[in-house]
């Protein structure tokens, strides 16, 4: 069996259900692979891990992947299980926000750690400054981990994932009609989320390519299985969560939402989505948004997915 190490971008949760399902259901084994899945966390940059040789393949958002590429870690997208993105901004209507024009003067929670690029691109296109709350600017805070800032009233808008924090907001008793939701994709600042990335130089090795082909094939099989059997997938994720902190209820919710994002993808990257991501990133290059400064080249390949889907 060939060994493959996969570094996730975040902790074990249904966001990565496909991989856990593939492992648990023996899809990897069928491909003669022995896959180790390493959970991530806020302190882990998968790009750094793969550069140091700690993983063969990582999941990350394309913005971070392209940024790493510019900084000398030549990552290549080999598959894109997430067709659409789940990143959105939720604001409280009670804070007086209905449309983006209402933002100035408010506090907005943003995820940093490589996730901040679409936000800055969006603000740049709206002409809203991000240096403090006044008539033409917003005050940005680095939002950590959870949906707390909105629930606790520390921010008027926060970043959420449809499949995670949004659910936590609703759980906390804030109803959907108390909220305004801005979806980055719908606003044209979409950015490809969880994709699979490897180091460019490794792809030159046919043995490695072959491994990746099998890996992607099995992973996609896992994803499709998870979409069809959300309850079972959630349970598998729960079984793989070593912290023992996850609840089945929340993972089932998450699986349901994640399935909506993976639904349209067979793993093949849609170049149009790639173009939109690059456009978003390039649209507001600044000190706060140094993701990429020039059009990347060779940042993706269809070779693996083509081979895998044959």
């Amino acid at each position, binding site marked *: 069996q060939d060994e493959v190490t996969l570094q996730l971008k975040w902790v074990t949760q249904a966001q990565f259900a496909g991989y856990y399902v593939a492992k648990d259901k023996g899809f990897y084994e069928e491909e003669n692979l022995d896959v180790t899945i390493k959970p991530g966390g806020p302190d882990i940059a998968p790009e750094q891990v793969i550069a*140091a040789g700690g993983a063969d393949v990582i999941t990350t958002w394309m913005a971070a992947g392209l940024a790493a590429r510019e900084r000398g870690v030549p990552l290549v997208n080999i598959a894109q299980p997430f067709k659409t993105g789940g990143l959105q901004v939720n604001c409280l209507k*009670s804070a007086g926000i209905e449309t983006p024009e209402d933002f100035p003067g408010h506090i907005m929670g943003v995820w940093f750690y490589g996730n901040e690029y679409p936000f800055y691109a969006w603000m740049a296109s709206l002409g809203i400054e991000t240096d403090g709350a006044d008539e033409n600017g917003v005050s940005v805070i680095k939002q950590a981990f959870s949906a707390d800032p909105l629930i606790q009233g520390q921010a008027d808008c926060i970043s959420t994932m449809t499949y995670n924090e949004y659910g*936590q907001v609703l759980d906390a008793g804030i109803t959907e009609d108390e909220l305004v939701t801005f979806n980055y994709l719908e606003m044209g600042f979409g950015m490809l989320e969880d994709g699979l990335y490897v180091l460019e130089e490794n792809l030159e090795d046919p043995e490695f390519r072959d491994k990746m082909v099998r890996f992607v094939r099995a992973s996609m099989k896992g994803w499709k299985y998870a979409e069809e059997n959300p309850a079972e997938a959630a349970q598998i994720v729960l079984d793989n969560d070593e*912290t023992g*902190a996850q609840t089945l209820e929340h993972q089932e919710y998450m699986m349901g939402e994640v399935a909506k994002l993976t639904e349209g993808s067979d793993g093949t990257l849609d170049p149009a989505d790639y173009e939109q991501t690059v456009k978003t990133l390039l649209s507001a290059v600044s000190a706060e948004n140094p993701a990429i400064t020039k059009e990347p080249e060779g940042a993706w390949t269809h070779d693996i997915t083509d081979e895998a889907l044959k």
Partner: protein
Amino acid sequence: MRTILPVAVVVAAIVAFWYLAAIPMNIHFAVTSAQRAGAEVTPESGAERRNMGAIALAARNPAQWTDSWTQAKPRLPVPHQVVAELWRTTALQHPASKQSLVYHGWVTLSATVVGFAIGTGLGILLAIGIVHSRAMDMSVMPWAIASQTIPILAIAPMIIVVLNSIGVQGLIPKAIISAYLSFFPVVVGMVKGLRSPDAMQFDLLKTYNASRSETFWKLRLPASAPYLFASLKVGIAASLVGAIVGELPTGASRGLGARLLTGSYYGQTVQIWSALFATAILAAALVAIVAGIERATLKRMGLAT
């Protein structure tokens, strides 16, 4: 015995204050959920409540006070919730289950102990070097102090990644971070201890024409024992902190640190607090064990009654 009553009084005061403080802390959510369940609350508008002070809101809605002690995800969980969670995740779980704090505590403890051993060993060796070599004394000491001003949480991920890349994973990276935090108190205490004998005690050995190693074994080392133990108590607590910090970037999957972190991703405050208390209890136990060894050793050495 003399301490039990005062401690009990202080703890009782803290617990009472805690329950009181939980009311304003949790009152917003308590009132909102009560309203959703159909209760009469003042003021009725959610927006108005949001802009209102917690204490004022609590004063206007005394009926919701008890609700603020029973929430699933309170801002401030109350003592009985924390105790119940601790009980649920220790006594009521199989110790090897990942739901069990015993299991996570064990994961953290093993890294702590290994890190403590490395840190103590390194600290003692450094101290021996510093005491015996002027060059080392002058060169190393300022940098040892400087090393402690580096935020370990910032470099922990890099340490993990670098060690990972050379194939070291699992317990050892965590233990190294833990050692990084614990070596310093040991160096400081041990240097002090190895230098604690007075000039006369050294001169005595000189009159016997004792060698450096004899001086070390027969004078410096025994004389340093009280200092060493004092630092070990600081060191083991630091080791525990190090192990927890080291758990955050190792994929945050197992251990008390991981529990703390995942608890905060999902706003599970009760889980955070119980992990916090589990950590403090573990720290207290570790310090108590070192203190016990200290007492026994010093007694055997005739340095304590």
